[in-house]
């Protein structure tokens, strides 16, 4: 992969340094922030309590929440699919489907599993799909949010194009809030690890209040959302 071009940087930054009345800074150390209220939220909260907060906040964001365990997950997923009356299903390519024994459920439901080798065909299928199903990589209790680290297999389209998204939320992925994900990402960057091209925080169906401040659910993204919270095995 070739590096990109940078245009006009020297003059641009020189203008800023001059206005700030000094030479250009070559090294800056982030201060130890005096104010860090984010660290206090849901501090020392148990996994069970976090799951309860996640559920409450998902519902607040007009998301349907189903609680289950790994033994029942296959049946719960099938039941969820049935509610959409045979509409097409698209799933990310994710080893966790197999780990949870869901390969069979996907196959029996005729789900299309994302395959980047098929190119645009994947997108055409996702456009027609009733359901996009994926695993949440991290889940935020404070806001009922699921997080995807997208790549060629964990495709962006799966949570975006179908009429509904279904996110499987292993209880162990639930953290208090965005703070914990941000700290993890910051640490991994410091260690020189590469970042996913898209880190997507999703909290329920798309919506808008642009017309007379009335909330309309379902604008350009999904119209419905389901979070299936799974107790850890």
């Amino acid at each position, binding site marked *: 992969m070739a590096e*990109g071009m940078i245009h006009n940087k020297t003059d641009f930054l020189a203008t800023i340094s001059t206005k700030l009345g000094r030479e250009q800074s070559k090294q800056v150390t982030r201060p130890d922030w005096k104010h860090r209220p*984010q660290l206090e939220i849901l501090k020392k909260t148990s996994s069970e309590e976090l799951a309860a907060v996640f559920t409450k906040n998902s519902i607040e964001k007009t998301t349907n929440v189903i609680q289950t365990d790994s033994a029942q997950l296959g049946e719960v997923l099938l039941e969820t699919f049935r509610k959409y009356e045979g509409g097409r299903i698209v799933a990310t390519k994710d080893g966790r489907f197999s780990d949870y024994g869901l390969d069979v459920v996907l196959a029996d439901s005729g789900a299309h599993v994302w395959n*980047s080798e098929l190119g645009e065909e994947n997108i055409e299928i996702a456009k027609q799909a009733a359901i996009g199903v994926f695993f949440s990589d991290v889940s935020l209790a404070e806001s009922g949010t699921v997080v995807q680290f997208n790549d060629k297999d964990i495709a*962006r389209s799966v949570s975006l194009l179908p009429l509904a998204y279904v996110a499987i939320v292993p209880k162990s992925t639930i953290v208090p809030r965005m703070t914990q994900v941000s700290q993890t*990402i910051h640490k991994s960057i410091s260690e020189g690890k590469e970042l996913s091209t898209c880190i997507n925080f999703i909290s329920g169906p798309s919506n808008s209040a642009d017309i007379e401040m009335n909330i309309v659910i379902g604008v350009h993204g999904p119209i419905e959302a389901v979070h299936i919270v799974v107790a850890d095995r």
Partner: protein
Amino acid sequence: MAMKIGSKPFFGRVDEALQDEFMRKAMSSAQDRLRGKKMLATVEDELVGDWEEWRSAGEEIRRHTLDNLDFYLDQLSENFSKRGGHVYFAATAEDATRYIQEVAKQKNAKKVTKAKSMVTEEIGLNEALEEVGCEVYETDLAEYILQIDDHDRPSHIVVPSLHKNKEQIRDTFRDKANYTGTEEPKQLAAFARSQLRETFMQADIGVTGCNFAVAESGTISLVTNEGNANMVTTFPETQISIMGMERLVPTWEELDVMTNLLSRSAVGQKITTYVTNLTPQLEEDSVDAPKEFHLVILDAGRSKALGTEFQSALHCIRCAACVNVCPVYRHIGGHAYGSIYQGPIGAVLSPILGGYEEYGELPFASSLCAACSEACPVKIPLHEQLIRHREIYVKEKAKTSEKLAMKTFGIGASSPSLFRLAVKGMPAMMKPFVKDDSISGGPGPIKLWTAVRDFPAPANSNFRKWFDNHKRGGGTDG
């Protein structure tokens, strides 16, 4: 069209707005709802803790970032380009649009989809892209409404179509896009969805603004609700994001704090439905991600605030919390400001970006009640900056027209006979305008004042007459 809205003078725009009953009702209702939602998500949300601590955290982060802006912009651009993205530093709006036009021409682009972005309004990007043969599609619901209504202009930073009611939107959709449904918001939104669905897929270029860029990773973060920003950044081969040069944070840890401040202050949400964090694609192996990613970093007057008492105006995160509490905005609405940046922050930023000649009167559109400064999630002292703008503006004006007026007054005041004549003649001159001891609809210098409130009629007597009479031993009422 860029930053400026309309061509009428400021007071003409205010007069027009004050006559618009619907707009005024829409503004007050929207302000109440937005402010109510914000309160629920901030000071009234027990889970969030002490909101003042959050504001202090925001202020601390923004101050440090702006104090070291050159360093963090350097870091951002290096990290973005290491991943294969292209960075263009644009000193002016023209530089930015010229670069984007070049990219569009190179890509032979015909269709461009756009997510909501005030900075693209500021640089007049749509017109620039149309000049090189592109069809530009606004995809945010509010921006879509404005675009099909003959390119109407935004009246609010967060909800640009706030000045339109659902019946007006229905009629616009019917007249301009063959809509046959009702004025129900759900139907109107569904219509926009159906109209734009294929366009998203066909676009050659997707354009976004940038809520925050993250220096440590070369990431662009978008804070949205409708899903259109995700569509715009998922399907076109090329993505172009444009950011004001101040819109960045050092690391993901600060992104966390700023996202929380923005979501809660702007729309009263714990987090918006989508927070989409995009970094150029390393391997170019995803089917649904752009192959080429350009980042345009814009100065366009912002650097004029650096190192001055207005530097903290650049801390703004465009949440519009100040707009939603401003009593003046409530009455005159967004368009009266004549700038795409409205309300208190607009009155502070517009003169910095566009100069006093064009926007120098805006700082007077404030009661200086300081509600804006209290609402600001990053503690910008907005009302103090409005006062400072006024001082500068008056000083500038005094050099020209007011100097002439003061000179005229000086001549009158230095000649006792001229002064006596003026004082004596005032009641007679004002007589045609006096009713019940007050003046409404007065002339000349009191015209603007009396357009909105009464002015006391000049007394038939005056201090000199009273004093002479008093010396002669007359009554106290002269």
